């Protein structure tokens, strides 16, 4: 039933993703050797491009499980056939994201310290547990799908993965939601917003991988399935827009935050551009047109829409993470503030090549794991045989 990626393509892909991973590792080594001075990050912008990449991958790792959840938890057979690929992508993206996050640490050599000292009040420490848990649950879920003896456990495993990934993305949102210090964060809206974002970004990644696999194997996706899956993507893009709008509107409602909102949405240099042109226009409206306009019904339109959604997600995360730090902390409300440490000033950040390559390396890791496992474990999505009777089931 599963088709394998053609051998020549396979080796080209392994070499390409291996190269990207390798470059990322070299970048990490340079950062380790020279310190973070070779990155654009500083004492004002403490999290930068690597965190944009890492958080994208971790959020998408949870969202890509949509397909598996719809298949196993909600019993839709078309999705169920794609559940193995969906679980694999989740593991691959999570591994990529965590690689970036870990290699960006000031003392990446102290991984052991992080694994043996847990501060129970820290959301970060919870997340270490949540990440390891998702790896385990996704692996067990895969096992229940691939080993007939484990079949009775398939449903419970699917439920466990479903519940766990919702909790995991809640945890990712909480990293920011608990930060009362900064105006951009510290909002209870963030965990649900991250969950909805994960749905959209994960499905976009899934579309791209699925379409690539079909293309490399010379197959085409059943148009009805394509239609269903791209409509779902459209729905998630709209839901994300709704949450992002609500987040900004609630911020505007709180008098203390309107300076920050003016900065992000209007006067803040690159950030309003990335937000309106990058996220809203290119990352949301354009994909929605490609998804819902009847003129664009080809696979490649969905792929372009998915790529745009991913581009938009990077723009949104850049605005959220870096813009959120660039706006000065309100330590002395009602005063004009100056100091040698950037008080009262918009912090500047210019990402450097090594940190960008490190982030890219994380994508390389995800790409490499996916390529190898798809071939070795035969996880390519099925060649659906058009069957009128089955159409009603999804």
């Amino acid at each position, binding site marked *: 039933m599963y088709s394998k990626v053609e051998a020549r393509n396979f080796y080209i892909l392994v070499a390409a993703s291996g190269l990207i991973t390798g470059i990322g590792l070299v970048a990490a080594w340079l950062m*380790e050797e*020279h*310190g*973070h*001075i070779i990155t654009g990050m*500083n*004492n*004002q*912008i*403490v*999290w930068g491009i690597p965190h944009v990449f890492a958080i994208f991958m971790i959020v998408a790792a949870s969202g890509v499980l949509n397909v598996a959840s719809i298949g196993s938890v909600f019993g839709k057979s078309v999705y169920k056939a794609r559940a193995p690929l969906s679980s694999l992508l989740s593991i691959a993206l999570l591994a990529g994201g965590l690689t970036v996050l870990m290699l960006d*640490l*000031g*003392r*990446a050599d*102290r*991984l052991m*310290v*992080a694994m043996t*000292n*847990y*501060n129970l*009040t*820290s*959301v*970060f*420490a919870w997340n*270490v547990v949540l990440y390891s848990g998702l790896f385990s649950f996704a692996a067990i879920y895969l096992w229940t799908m691939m080993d007939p003896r484990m079949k009775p456990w398939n449903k419970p495993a699917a439920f466990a993965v479903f519940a766990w990934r919702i909790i995991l993305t809640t945890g990712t949102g909480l*990293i920011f939601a*608990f*930060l*009362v*210090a*900064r105006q951009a*964060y510290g909002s209870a809206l963030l965990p649900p917003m991250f969950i909805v974002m994960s749905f959209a970004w994960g499905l976009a990644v899934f579309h791209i991988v699925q379409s690539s696999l079909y293309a490399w194997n010379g197959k085409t996706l059943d148009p009805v399935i394509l239609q269903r899956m791209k409509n779902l993507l459209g729905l998630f893009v709209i839901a994300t827009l709704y949450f992002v709008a609500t987040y900004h509107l609630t911020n505007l409602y709180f008098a203390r935050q309107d300076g920050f909102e003016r900065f992000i949405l209007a006067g803040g240099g690159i950030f309003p551009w990335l937000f309106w042109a990058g996220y809203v226009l290119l990352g949301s409206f354009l994909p929605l047109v490609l998804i819902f306009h009847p003129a664009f019904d080809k696979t490649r339109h969905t792929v372009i829409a998915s790529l745009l959604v991913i581009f938009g997600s990077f723009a949104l995360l850049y605005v959220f993470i870096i813009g959120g*730090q660039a706006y000065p*902390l309100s*330590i*002395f409300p*009602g*005063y*004009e*503030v*100056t*100091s*040698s*440490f*950037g*008080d009262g000033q918009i*912090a*500047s950040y210019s990402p450097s090549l090594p940190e960008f390559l490190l982030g890219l390396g994380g994508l390389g890791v995800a790409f490499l794991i996916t390529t190898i496992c798809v071939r070795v474990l035969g996880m390519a999505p099925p060649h659906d045989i058009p069957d009128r009777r089955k159409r009603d089931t999804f």
Partner: protein
Amino acid sequence: MSAENPERRAFLGKASALAAGLAIAPGVLLFGFAHGRPAGEAASGKVRWGMLVDTNQCGNGCNDCVTACNKENGLSGGTKATDSQWIRKVELKNMKGGRNLSLPVMCQHCEHPPCVDVCPTGASFRRADGIVLVDKHRCIGCRYCMMACPYKARSFVHEPLADQKPDVPRGKGTVESCTLCVHRVDRGEQPACVEACAKAGRGAILFGDLNDPESEISKRIRTVASAQIRADLMLNPGIRYEGI
């Protein structure tokens, strides 16, 4: 501000020389803390170290506390965005009345420090006597504490360092901040910034035990109006400010 007035300045200079003499030489008796703990004894939870900064005495343009901190702790003194600054002078101008203020901001040594809450490994911690520190043996350099601190009190070491002070270990890839000169406090001395401020003739920073009702700082907090910055967050910082 008054510091612009040369006559007043000269007077302050003389008065402060006297004050400095009082503050430093018989400081032992004045503040009643100058006997360091015995070497084998742990920091006590009965004590809570704190500071009271009198912004009326703090001079616009005076940077002595910062210089003293840099010297004591072996910081470069650079002010690039990647340089460590444990204490900084902040100049304030009221947007409505136009009142000018100048004050030092450093780690506020909160009773409920957000940096300690968020630290994944427990490297950020609050010592029994209220001093918030980074255990650099455990810090993995994730910088989550820097995201969480409402006072932007922490710095990350971006470059390899050499020739650190024996009392103040610092290293690349870890986060650091004001230690309240813990090595000096443990010896029974005052933090370097406090000493420098007194030496400059201002005596704007009062250091002492907030838990001891008889300490100079406690007495003063009882008698004058003082405030904590970002008091709305209910973190109960150990650093208090007069005149803001």
